[in-house]
């Protein structure tokens, strides 16, 4: 039997939480599938991180420590993962569905002629073979995907499961990797320029989505409720893509990840990438005309109605309550 390989990811000098979530999945299905857990820690100067991960669910940790891995680059990480798959004799490779994960994982799969499943939230093992649960149609439907025997690469939605918190016996071993010339050259990271929109510190966020319908409706309808509550205004991706609001307003995996005390989603259907960015909010109120909108699954309170009936009335009521 082969192994389950957890591909970790390093962010700001730490192994990120999503990697511990992969360890949790791997540990959960290892015994049922008769496979052991192995991991890859790839980066530059990562020896101590690898040691720590080995005792926190990583099992046998293969360590690729090289300057070529100092920043994410698809060529270097593809080579490291391929070397780890060979060394670990892995037949299930778990990679977080992050910007680097989705960039490299399918390339690894194609190079291995392996199956691929993207952005899964649950992995199951039945009779030694794997199945995967994931959303399709931007969150509107669930799909169960079965893998044929053979190698498979899966990316896992960050935050889908709780991170591994136990301790395990593990070990580390160096992994030798033949690095090709990097054909995709990393140049720099550009952080979003300061625009005065810092949603991460807001206690209350009122966000509007495609259902708001037009750019002028944001200052007319969404912003007044945010102002009345003393909160900030946010938006979903389609609003930003359409140019109705600039990018700093975007809440979601590719925008700002927020955790306010109160999040009000108006006219947002709830694509996964938006939910990832706001589902950790303390209390969520969703207002949407479509009763089947995925936003209602993460909301504490839902109102199936036209936001243009509810939001202005709520704004007035909040203003009155505040006197």
């Amino acid at each position, binding site marked *: 039997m082969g192994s389950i390989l957890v591909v970790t990811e390093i962010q700001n000098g730490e192994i990120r939480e999503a990697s511990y979530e992969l360890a949790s999945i791997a540990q959960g299905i290892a015994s049922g599938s008769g496979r052991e857990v192995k991991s890859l820690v790839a980066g530059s100067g990562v020896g101590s991180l690898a040691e720590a991960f080995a005792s926190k669910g990583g099992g046998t940790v293969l360590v690729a420590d090289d300057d070529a891995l100092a920043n*994410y680059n*698809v*060529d270097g990480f593809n080579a490291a993962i391929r070397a780890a798959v060979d060394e670990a004799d892995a037949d299930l490779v778990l990679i977080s569905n992050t*910007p680097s994960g*989705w*960039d490299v*994982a*399918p*390339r690894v*799969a*194609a*190079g291995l002629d*392996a199956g*691929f*499943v*993207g952005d899964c939230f649950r992995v199951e093992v039945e009779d030694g073979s794997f199945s995967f649960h*994931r*959303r*399709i*149609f*931007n969150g*509107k439907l*669930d*799909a169960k*995907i*079965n893998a*044929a025997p053979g190698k*498979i690469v899966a990316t896992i939605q960050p935050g889908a499961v709780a991170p591994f918190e136990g301790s395990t016996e593990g070990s580390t071993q160096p992994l030798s990797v033949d690095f090709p010339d990097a*054909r*995709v*050259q*990393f*140049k720099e*990271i*550009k952080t*979003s320029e300061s625009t005065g929109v810092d949603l991460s510190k807001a206690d209350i966020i009122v966000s509007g989505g495609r259902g708001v319908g037009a750019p002028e409706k944001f200052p007319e309808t969404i912003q007044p409720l945010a102002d009345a*509550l003393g909160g900030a205004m946010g938006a979903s991706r*389609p609003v*930003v*893509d359409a140019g109705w609001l600039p990018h700093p307003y*975007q809440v979601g*995996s590719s*925008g*700002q*990840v927020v955790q306010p005390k109160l999040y009000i989603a108006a006219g947002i259907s709830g694509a996964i990438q938006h939910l990832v960015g706001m589902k950790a909010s*303390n*209390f*969520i*109120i*969703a207002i949407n005309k479509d009763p089947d909108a995925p936003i*209602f*699954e993460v909301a*504490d*309170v*839902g*109102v*199936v109605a036209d936001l243009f009936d*509810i939001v202005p009335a*709520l704004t007035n009521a909040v203003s009155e*309550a505040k006197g």
Partner: protein
Amino acid sequence: MKIMVCLKQVPHQDARLDVDASGTWIQEANIKFEINSYDTYALEEALRVKDDTESEVVVVSIGPDRTTQALRTALGMGADRAVHINDDEANGSDALGIAKILAAVAKEENPDLIFMGLMSDDGNFTAVPPMLAELTGVPHTTAAVGLSRANGTLTVEREIEGGATEVVELSTPCLVAVQTGLNEVRYASLKGIMAAKKKPLDVKSVSDLGLSGSVGAASAKVSIEKIAPPEKGDSAELIEGSTDEIVGTLITKIKELGLL
């Protein structure tokens, strides 16, 4: 410069999604289809290259007869030529199977650039672009939100987390998978639509590409067992009533949170 743009025709984003009798896909009869939103930005980016450098833009799509409409739309927007892989043998292909078909087309076309969307609005797999790049042996990048070109080198800003971007450089031939919002997508003009009717649209089969027996359901390494509406776990407590009643309940909730 030759640019290949891979398009997928997907159910319209407001289409009703009912599970079909097989339980593995949606009912496609009587719903509207459109070009995958991500792919429209890829096509636009290719047309922009063509606007300022003499280039040929070839659009490629895999799908049944209805896919012709997506390709004609792309030709109407300004693409020069279309290749339509229309073959039941492609049905049931997984992402790798689709990538193999597109790689066979890429081998025939030998493009300098391949542009496509980061993912499709239906499957949301994010899989085919890096796979196609691997199979064709070219470098790739994904989630492009900015792109500039000079002397065969592309500088791409790719979207990462927290509102930041990562700048990478790669040289042609290469593949770029684009994020939505990369540019402002043009509409097909009436003149463009008329001209599109005369533009070449080649229909090919899987065997024309030498792939008979190696793609489709039988070769797929992953397959959908079932699809269903998401389980309603701890879904929201729904508030009903008149607008005044709803607003009253919401105010009570906000007060309970200590925020009013």
